[in-house]
């Protein structure tokens, strides 16, 4: 039984990887389109506001480049592909197969990350060539921890989007909701401004949401900044657990509704 599952996981991943390789040109462009943190670095490095917060240009550089990396490997588009599969009628055959369709989408995301890896390395190389004086070396242990943190962060984001993708069962244009999910992610995760620069009350509110943990926390880990490792992982795992429960429940409800209305 275990072996069979392992084989299924391997086949799912390798098939999706083969598919993603077909889309390598798009994935390359998509990787480039994640440059927001680098644009923000441009502004922050010039604005000079950071003086007084213990933030210097080296800090800003390592922070935003790390944020760029974290964002690359936590990209989620499950709502769009779920909606498309629903509209084009692929969902019905998926439902007739003895596998939770969740895994199809999850594996396709992971396969995409593998495809994306060389492109991200290429972009990073270019960045470092132009900014070699700001280069930093995180410890291997921190790198290891941040890779794990990035993967859990990706899982948390994926589960959150999965929950909302279930709305497609009720409304066939639900992927528009993705725009709403993007808002708190954009402004509360630390993508455009480090949380350290937030006014205290807003920072405290942000820390009550999952968003800082899916970007700021792994980014700081990777940048080698001071960060509460235990608290970060605790929050990530907690949120993953909560979203997993809700997601599973939403799936059950969605399928029941889908079958009620007609596939």
């Amino acid at each position, binding site marked *: 039984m275990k072996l*069979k599952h392992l*084989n*299924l996981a*391997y*086949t*799912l991943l390798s*098939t999706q990887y*083969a*598919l993603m390789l*077909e*889309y390598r040109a798009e994935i390359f462009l998509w990787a480039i389109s994640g440059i927001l943190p680098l644009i923000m670095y441009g502004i922050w490095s010039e604005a000079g506001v950071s003086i007084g917060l213990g933030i210097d240009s080296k800090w800003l550089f390592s922070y935003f480049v790390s944020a760029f990396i974290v964002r690359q490997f936590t990209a989620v588009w499950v709502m769009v592909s779920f909606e498309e599969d629903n509209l*084009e*009628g*692929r969902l*019905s*055959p*998926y*439902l*007739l*197969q*003895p*596998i939770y369709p969740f895994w199809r989408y999850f594996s396709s995301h992971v396969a995409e990350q593998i495809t994306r890896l060389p492109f991200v390395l290429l972009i990073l190389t270019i960045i470092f060539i132009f900014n070699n004086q700001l280069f930093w070396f995180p410890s291997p242990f921190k790198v290891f921890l941040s890779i794990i943190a990035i993967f859990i962060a990706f899982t948390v984001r994926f589960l959150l989007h999965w929950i909302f993708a279930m709305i497609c069962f009720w409304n066939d244009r639900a992927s528009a909701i993705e725009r709403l999910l993007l808002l708190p992610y954009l402004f509360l995760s630390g993508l455009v401004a480090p949380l350290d620069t937030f006014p205290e009350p807003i920072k405290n509110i942000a820390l009550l949401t999952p968003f800082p943990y899916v970007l700021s926390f792994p980014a700081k880990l990777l940048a080698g900044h001071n960060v509460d490792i235990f608290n970060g992982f605790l929050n990530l795992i907690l949120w993953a657990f909560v979203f997993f429960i809700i997601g599973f429940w939403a799936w059950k409800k969605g399928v*029941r509704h*889908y*079958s*009620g*209305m*007609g*596939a």
Partner: protein
Amino acid sequence: MPIISARSVSKIYKVSEKAPGLKGTLKHFFERRIRIIKAVEQLNFEISKGEIVGFIGSNGAGKTTTLKMLCGLIHLSSGSIEVAGHNPEQRDRNFLRQITLVMGQKQQLIWDLPPMDSFRLNAAVYGLSDRETKRRINELSTMLELDNELYRPVRKLSLGQRMKAELLASLLHRPTVLFLDEPTLGLDINSQIRVRQFLAEYNYKYGATILLTSHYMGDITSLCKRVLLIHDGKLFYDGLLSDLTNKLSPYRLVKLSLTDSDSAHFVSQFGQLVEYDDHLVKLLIARENLTEVLTTILNQFKVKDIEVTDPPIEQLIGKLLKSGNI
């Protein structure tokens, strides 16, 4: 013991309606009018193991809805269904392993990869071993006459090749109950025949039960002894295809060849004229007074040759499907 049984199955939908134009649009935006539609009403039928049953009816008659209810994709509003000893709505894994659904207008193969990759994926989903998978792919691809196509991206395949690959993917787990919704849609005549032969072979080899819908009467007449005719969500006919003619057409077709061309005009008054060409007259005559009318004709006119047949079933059903009236 039937493998499929449906007892007083009904399905009701709610749909919202919109009047045309900007005014209608705005009104629709703020307030939706809901109408109730009965897609399927009080359906009763049973299908035994190994049967190939044709499911016919005009567009919107409720065929696809019924097929989806049989797979458990749509829940019933009332009634009950049992397929292979399961209630489809529970979507039990053991149930799912026994069935398959093929939709001619929708595809499940991964568009940008060769079919082989989709097969491998499906094999893993159904937990088949590598050796078994290879064996089944070989066997099915020989039956379907697929070969090099398996290694080309799906988008590069012709419609016929794609449909064959689609069938292979859906049958890899060797289901015993097949639901086929327009499996030959848009295929050329050769591919249609190939698919038909394949289905007959699969049915014979594995004793599989097949329920198929098609707009091509050729599919139905060559594969199905028995048909279910559904109209407006109600079961209109359930029985042998050959007996359907009687039900659909209470007439027989009489071809008369006359020696005297003048009398053709008079002869045509004895029935519903189909064709009239100099010496040749084709008439539809009601079954119950066929002998009576024929005797009269033979007595009054000089007849060279006479031929009595059933009107062709394809034409009858085709006409029915087009007009939507019974």
